């Protein structure tokens, strides 16, 4: 078993890591987006889009 090439990775596995992992650095000069809000925003985007796909099936 090996990991698929990077464009075949499941988006959900990628987002698990990119949205919950990685160093979060904020400060005066940062447009401070790298927080908990981002996770919520993105997962909402993901789930609502899944809903949309299901509805249109």
């Amino acid at each position, binding site marked *: *078993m090996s*990991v698929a090439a*990077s*464009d075949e*990775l499941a*988006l*959900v*596995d*990628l*987002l*698990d*890591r*990119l*949205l*919950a*992992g*990685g*160093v*979060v*650095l*904020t*400060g005066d*000069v*940062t*447009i401070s*987006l*790298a927080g908990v809000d*981002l996770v919520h*925003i*993105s997962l*909402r*985007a*993901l*789930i*609502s*889009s*899944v*809903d949309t796909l*299901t509805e249109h099936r």
Partner: protein
Amino acid sequence: MADELTYAYAVGDLELVADAELVGLPGVGRGIVRILSAGGLAALVSSVDERAFGEEALKQNLERLPWLEQIARAHHAVVETASRRHAVVPLRMVTIYLDDDGVREVLERNGTRFQEALDRIGGGRMEWGVKAYLTPAPADSTPDVPEGAGPGTSYLTRRRVARDRTDEWRAAAMHVAEQVHLRLSDSAVASRLHTPQDRRLTGRDDEMVLNAAYLVEERDAELFRQTVTGWVDQHLQLELTGPWAPYSFATVDES
């Protein structure tokens, strides 16, 4: 000015500066990867358009899955390339500064902490993902129904017995998942539990009961892989992903 912002991907030590392969990689939003250095550290960055990555625009763009996916994959491609060649600390996706000086300032201010993080994930350590799915309880035997029970009673009895069996099956599976996690944690430097993914996102009917990440030494990777792929239990199906850049273990306590 401020029509361009600086998107930062990952931080490493100064050997990044000498690696010509990293400069010019395609970044997010058609940006081109550059390297900034300060305080004995280097950061992979690229410029992004404020119209798409400014605070307000970004909030809206993140709601659009195709956009989010594009950024996630581009971010990952840069981090992945860098982490195959060097020890790097990935930054949280969509870490954006007003300009390059903002990044340099962060490097200077957090030097010791980045160094600690680099030491923790360095030396060829990689992240592996392990997910466990609950297999459906076997619906083989017909439950015993008391003699002389009416059709309604036997239907209810069968339903109750089936429900009890499903609960027991699930409890047994959770126990096995815990054993898997303990065993894998033993052969890893560190572990982290992510929230199990929703069925709608996995596209599978089976419930995910474990979604974990393990930081594994390079020399232990093969054994780790075999432990996962060789684990056979009727209650669970395990799935291995990786090796990943150590996203789940990149943490810095900010000053």
